[in-house]
């Protein structure tokens, strides 16, 4: 051993240096971690222990024009669960399955939600019953990862009666989550799925809040009071509509359980939608929080197609209701005057080339002026008027009367009508094949048959122009600045003459005479939509009072055979709106 004092102190000195180096290295490393990178680790530590629990915002309340509630929120309960991975989620779900009576589909749906947003509590039941909740609350300690939340639940007091325009809400789907439109959305959230709920999703949604739960390493909440202040959810402002809920309910009642079809009631001066209904309807409340499979299946298999909105999605040949478009096109083209008669008087039909085109009334109408032709809906008159206008101009006229575009109603479901394009020849060539159609199409088109299918709402829009002075009002459910666009220009004499002719329809001898209303002049037009192989659909589009219209109503009655029953529905709705008793019982008439 060399334990000479000099050796020892040299080694001691080196040892002390080594100790200091170790000390400095460690302290330096801690300084680097604790002082220089402090913020980074604080964030990680907060992320570790704070679990954000989203607090859904109540959707905006939807009101009718008189402040009645169309859509509101009721207190509901959702059951969510937090998990660290798919396996632990499945294990938790398996334990909960019997209490919650979860189906396999529900379990798989929850797993999908988790995969998409593993840090959010995974929604298991969006709308749990109070029974389920009370059982869960009893066993709360057994399920520490369970998040039971009181959540606003969409409710429509009038249920079926308003489904046609208000739509419904439901959980956002996988494909919706994939679309950029729903970038800010998370699985398990409720969104508007149709009608106003979808159209105004942005306004109705509100802003989700957040509650911070402190959790331990196993994800179990540990303290009651929030370690960080909550972000309270912000409910959306209410949505005010033009709907007259009283009228809506009345219209629904008129259709009852047996009739099927669509109705749209507009204020011709603003385009405000007073009522919109498609019969039969569905219960939007059942869609909230997940639609029961058997109810959905029932809706899908119902032959009356309750999920097809007959007011904005269904397209039907407008039949005689279109004759006014032919008339207006004739007048604006200068080929017919209000008192003009056609060369061939009506004897029940019209010979065109090799084909004989029938009038709806085999007995014939004789020689009529335009006024009489509208009142009696004489086909022979309009065949000749159509020929006089010519197919190209008739189509151009229809297009300018917006027969080829959507009405612009604020519903996402609205379909565009079928109508020939301005390039008439190539349109028909494409539709029927070159040389496989003839000028006889002019005759079909002039009475609203042929290549022409319209939605109920679009016909209502056209009649707002007839009811006023050629200004078509864009139908709007939600209150806003009215959009009115002139679609034809007639002299005021011509305008009022057309209204008078439409009033004639509901007068004695007219096709809807039975639908007259006492004390007010009702104007309108019946129509029959040919329905291959089945009973025809009946139309009526009209307005009242004829001289100063306050309401336009378009009714399509599926399998209504002809327009008189539709007219009856329309006249009751109008009478209800104008607070007048309609005339009694219907007569057999045609359109």
């Amino acid at each position: 051993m060399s334990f000479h004092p000099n050796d020892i102190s040299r080694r001691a000195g080196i040892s002390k240096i080594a100790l200091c180096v170790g000390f400095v290295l460690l302290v330096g490393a801690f300084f680097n971690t604790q002082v220089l990178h402090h913020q980074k680790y604080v964030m990680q530590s907060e992320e570790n222990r704070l679990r954000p629990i989203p607090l859904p915002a109540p959707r905006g309340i939807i009101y009718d024009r008189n402040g009645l509630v169309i859509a509101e929120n009721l207190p509901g309960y959702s059951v969510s669960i937090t998990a660290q991975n798919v396996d632990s989620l499945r294990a938790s779900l398996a334990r909960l399955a019997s209490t919650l009576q979860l189906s396999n589909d529900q379990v798989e749906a929850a797993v999908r939600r988790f995969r998409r947003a593993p840090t959010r509590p995974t929604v298991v039941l969006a709308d749990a019953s109070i029974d389920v909740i009370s059982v869960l609350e009893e066993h709360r300690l057994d399920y520490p990862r369970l998040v039971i939340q009181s959540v606003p639940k969409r409710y429509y007091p009038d249920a079926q009666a308003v489904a046609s325009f208000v739509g419904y809400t439901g959980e956002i789907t996988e494909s919706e989550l994939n679309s950029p439109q729903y970038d800010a959305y998370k699985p398990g959230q409720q969104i508007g799925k149709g009608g106003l709920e979808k159209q105004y999703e942005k306004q109705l949604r509100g802003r989700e809040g957040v509650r911070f739960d402190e959790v331990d390493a196993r994800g179990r909440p540990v303290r009651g009071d929030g370690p960080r202040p909550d972000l309270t959810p912000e409910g959306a402002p209410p949505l005010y509509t033009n709907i007259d809920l009283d009228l809506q309910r009345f219209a629904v009642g008129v259709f009852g359980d047996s009739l099927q079809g669509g109705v749209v009631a507009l204020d011709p001066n603003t385009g405000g939608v007073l009522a919109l209904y498609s019969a039969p309807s569905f219960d939007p409340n059942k869609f909230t929080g997940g639609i029961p499979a058997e109810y959905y299946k029932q809706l899908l298999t119902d032959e009356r197609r309750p999920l097809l909105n007959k007011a904005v999605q269904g397209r039907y040949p407008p039949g005689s209701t279109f004759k006014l478009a032919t008339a207006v096109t004739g007048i604006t083209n200068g080929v017919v005057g209000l008192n003009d008669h056609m060369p061939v008087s009506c004897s029940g039909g019209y010979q065109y080339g090799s084909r004989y085109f029938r009038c709806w009334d085999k007995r014939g109408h004789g020689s009529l002026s335009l006024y009489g032709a509208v009142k009696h809906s004489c086909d022979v008159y309009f065949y000749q008027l159509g020929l006089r206008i010519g197919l190209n101009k008739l189509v151009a006229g229809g297009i300018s009367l917006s027969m080829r575009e959507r009405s612009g109603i604020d519903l996402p479901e609205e379909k565009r009508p079928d109508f020939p394009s301005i390039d008439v020849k190539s349109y028909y060539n494409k539709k029927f094949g070159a040389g496989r159609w003839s000028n006889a199409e002019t005759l079909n088109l002039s009475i609203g048959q042929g290549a022409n299918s319209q939605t109920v709402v679009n016909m209502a829009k056209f009649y707002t122009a007839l009811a006023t002075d050629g200004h078509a009002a864009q139908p709007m459910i939600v209150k806003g600045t009215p959009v009115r666009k002139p679609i034809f220009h007639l002299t005021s004499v011509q305008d009022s003459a057309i209204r008078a002719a439409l009033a004639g329809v509901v007068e004695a001898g007219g096709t809807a005479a039975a639908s007259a209303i006492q004390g007010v002049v009702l104007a309108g037009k019946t129509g029959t939509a040919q329905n291959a192989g089945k009973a025809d659909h009946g139309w009526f589009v009209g307005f009242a009072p004829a001289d100063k219209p306050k309401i336009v109503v378009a009714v399509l009655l599926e399998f209504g055979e002809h327009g008189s029953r539709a007219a009856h529905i329309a006249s009751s709705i109008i009478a209800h709106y104008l607070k007048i008793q309609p005339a009694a019982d219907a007569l057999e008439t045609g359109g």
Partner: protein
Amino acid sequence: MLRRIVSDYPLLIAASLLSLFGVAMVYSAGQTDTPTYVATMYRSQMVWTIAGVLIAYGVTRSSVRFIEWMTVPLYLLSIVLLGLTLVIGKGAGTAASTKSWLAIGSHRLGQPSEIAKVTVVLMLARVLASRRDAPRSLLDLWKPALVVGIPWVIIMLQPDLGTGIVFIGIFFGMLYWSGVSWPLLILLGSPAVSLVLSFSTGLWGAWFFILVALVLWYRPYLVEGIVLMMANVATGVVAPLLWEKLAPYQQNRLKVFLDPSADPRASGYHVIQSKVAIGSGGIFGKGFTLGTQKRLAFLPEQHTDFIFSVVGEEVGFIGVTVALTLFLWLFFRITQISQRANDSYSSLVAFGLMTSWFVHVLVNVGMTLNLMPITGIPLPFFSYGGSFMLACWLGVGVLMRISGEGRGRTKIRA
């Protein structure tokens, strides 16, 4: 009277402060939101500490000569106990698959390896002190190598990598203190370096050239030189095979050391959470017992291996610096004791204990920041554990005695 009992105040104060700090942290480690068995452990830790102090007092009442006389029996006893662990050893905690505990039934008695850390120091000091000169060749080192090698092999068979590292630290530290020259130490350690570097052919090649140069310059015996080079080649070749032999959890620990984010949920979890705890503590910490990482059980083994993470989280950089400064002070003091020791045995014992603790601190504290691989090595005076606390204070007692018998005692100042 007190003067006679307490021969070295700085040593006693440093060790006591560290123990108090340690017990406080063990108490805090038990303060979790979901109470666990750790909650009451500070009580037994206090008992162990008091027991340790009593043992230390007992040792100070004896003499260094008595200790030296006891060295061989104690060493042999610890070897026997270590050997027993291989037969009837039990695992515990995170190292459940190892056999480092002696137990009767389900009652764990203790870890013989903790006692062996002290007895090996004593035995090595005895062997080295018995020589007239410092070992000058590798052949001279066969005895010391055997003293450390036997327990080391048993410990590696348990297996307990961390304690193995401590033994190697003790071995090199004490050889250095006994006067073994730097080149010889490097040559001695070269096979281990080869072991590590063998994973990169280029680095290993470079190391081999340095080694050859060193051998030519130092000129050991020819046989030694050949054996040494062969040992380097062998470890270089064996290393990859040895890697395969490691248990998966050991492989993972080493992999995670290199990149903790490689497996953030499993093996890397401990290190990541420990760093988050320490980093989020900042300068002043989150407050005693208030660390969220610890409270909410994100921190693993918070009362044993990762107790220093609790220090970092709750008392911050200030607390960390205080703790490390206390350790530095203690180690400086022990270095002084070994400098002033009356004889080479005492001097070597003191320095050996210091080296042992220094390695513990370096590896344990470094591990909490991922500067060292996770080896399950405790922090002296801090980590919960009876055997270790007793061993630490036994060491303090021995040091007190050595200090008391040392030269220039009256000159020693705090």
